[in-house]
């Protein structure tokens, strides 16, 4: 399959919009500096359409340019979490039928992160955008530990409550703090040989499924995730694992 390139107003024009600030004065050479930067980055036919002084030695640019190359859709394998579109009752039915017991889910915003609105949107009764939260599911036992929960405590609680899944929210990403904190949890679980015991799921506005997997999670949910989507994925995955396990035994 051939590469596709960005579309401005004609197929194949490759147009991209950029804005950036260079630490240099907005003087007579500013335009050329900006153009050269774009050329160095590989862009074709760069146009600087706006130059403004962001400070004494700082110049803000708005630019348009043609991308040097595109992307081949065939290359792309990774994707967002794909889960069956199951309804509230279908999900409960699935758990009841296949698991025969309530699925235990424990969640928290870990370490320094105090943003609970996201995890609450997934776990609390109210839910998100009209989609009920996990607490509402009769066949899910949902425990939301809230904000700034140390990894150690989260792991302890997970063991005590014999959780099936651990849900972690990370919203603050500055200086990759989320990556560090998410990794800390994985390391902790592996150190205690607990990793395989749980569906390990994370989410947040700057997280993607691919990134989550790189960090050693089973799934990652990004902005606008819906509780039912998360629940459907967990239920199906858990069922799959347990049946696999059973077959292993028998």
């Amino acid at each position, binding site marked *: 399959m051939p590469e596709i390139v960005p*579309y*401005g*107003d*004609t*197929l194949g024009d490759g*147009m991209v*919009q950029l*804005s950036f600030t260079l630490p240099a004065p907005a003087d007579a050479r500013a335009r050329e500096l900006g153009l050269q930067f774009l050329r160095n980055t590989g862009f074709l036919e760069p*146009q*600087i*359409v*706006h130059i*403004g002084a962001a400070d004494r030695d700082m110049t803000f640019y*708005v630019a*348009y340019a043609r991308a040097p190359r595109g992307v081949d859709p065939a290359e792309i394998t990774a994707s967002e979490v794909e889960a069956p579109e199951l309804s509230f009752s279908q999900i409960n039915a699935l758990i009841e039928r296949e698991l025969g017991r309530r699925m235990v889910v424990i969640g928290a915003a870990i370490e320094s992160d105090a943003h609970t609105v996201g995890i609450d949107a997934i776990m609390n009764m109210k839910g998100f955008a009209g989609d009920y939260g996990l607490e509402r599911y009769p066949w899910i036992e949902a425990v939301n530990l809230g904000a700034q929960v140390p990894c150690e405590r989260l792991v302890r609680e997970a063991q005590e409550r014999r959780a099936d899944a651990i849900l972690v929210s990370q919203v603050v990403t500055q200086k990759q703090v989320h990556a560090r904190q998410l990794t800390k949890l994985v390391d902790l679980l592996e150190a205690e040989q607990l990793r395989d015991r749980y569906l390990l799921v994370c989410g947040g506005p700057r997280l993607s499924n691919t990134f989550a997997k790189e960090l050693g999670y089973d799934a990652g949910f990004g902005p606008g995730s819906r509780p039912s989507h998360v629940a459907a994925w967990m239920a199906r995955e858990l069922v799959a694992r347990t049946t696999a396990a059973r077959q292993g035994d028998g």
Partner: protein
Amino acid sequence: MKLELDSGLVAEAHGLADEIAAPVLDFARAHTTVAIERTVARLFGVDGVDDLGVPLPNVLVDALGPRLCRGLAMPLAAACADGRTPQQVAEAVAAGAPLADPPDEALPDARRLAARLAENADAAILACRAERSRLIEQYGDPSTPWIYVIVATGNIREDARQAQAAARAGADVVAVIRSTAQSLIDYVPYGETTEGFGGTYATQANFRRVRAALDEVMPEVGRYLRLTNYASGLCMPEIAACGAMERLDMMLNDSMYGILFRDINPQRTFCDQYVSRMINGRAGIIINTGEDNYLTTAPGHEAGHTVIASNFINRALALAAGIPEPQIGLGHAFEIDPDRPGQLMEEWAIALLIRELFPRCPLKYMPPTKHVTGDIFRTQSLGTLFNLVGVATGQHIQLLSILTEAVHTPFMSDRMLAIQDARRVFEAARPLRESLQAVPGGPLEQRAQLVLREAVELLRQVAEAGMFEAVERGWFADTPRPRDGGRGLEGVAERDPAYMNPFLELWEPTLAEAASA
């Protein structure tokens, strides 16, 4: 939103506009132009081009030569006496056959045939109009302000594709921008076109293509989608005719734009606008006037009154051509320098003033353009304020501001962002219209009253000097245009007593009644 206005002043303004329009109309009724006669050919069904690519309507009118003053209808109808269609006659003329003057004894038949051909054309136009009403019935009309966007890729196929994307994104009206300077060519190109700068050509085939593209998505989007183009330049009436036959819904169709912004001869334009408007009126097409452009050459803060004065005149000329107020989309714009203190209050005042002056007209509100820059974030914000004023003052047709207005003709994504912003602002701010009112004697009300007084003063001067004179003196758009200057004067002829145009005979008696609809 209400404003305290001096009703006496408003009445005077309308009176002055009629006074100003009268001599212009007399002039138009005493002359014809090559464009008007080519329009007769087109409405008789003549289309296509000769081996050199010259459109057959031009071939016929060129064949008339000095007989232009008597019109094309009689010679053409006479030539059809032998049972040929006007198209066949045109092809023969293109092949070298002469276009003879009918002998006196042939005149009555020719006259009858011409009348019949005109009635057929009129029936076709009315059929299109009925079809539009039916579709509006079926799919429903969007709420106002209507979301109006332009497509301007220069390739009619990309245009059609982007028109559909725009409709899916939420556009209510799509205008296909013409290629730079089409307005200066004295013929209407033929067939579908895939090139042009800043847009592609207005051709009947292009109209048909985009019309079909929009009709195709109507069921999906569940509302009637309007198509717009430009009955403007040297071919005003011809393009109006093409639009009337292809069910366009709106036409940019101004009584002065060509003069002021394309340096087209004033006499030519005043004749052409009259006939083009008669057709638009008959076809149920909403015209858009171009006063917004004044503020691109004259400063928005000082020239606001010229826009309003021109609105009164454009309206008077449109009514006289049989266009009822619900089809007169008077134009104005959000063009005051945004960095001027109080700018938003002044824009709000003008928008509200025009809304109250022309309560029955579907006002066309144009976005900030001249003062926007390559700072796309600033332009985005200005567009948001423009959308707010549009909905808060009850504008009818909102031509959306595009964040790259100062950069390039809109990308598909630029248009999408504009539509998303307009929809959001319209929904979020709609109740403001019944929530807020002007403080009596406050800055906004005072501003509105001042601009109205200035507009009436200008109308008095124009009435005094006469329209041709006013244009020569550059009172509109800061652009002086001499009566005999500009392009296209050679295409104007004073009508001969024997001048005959079956469409005028058919429509002129009905104009007064049509206008009062």
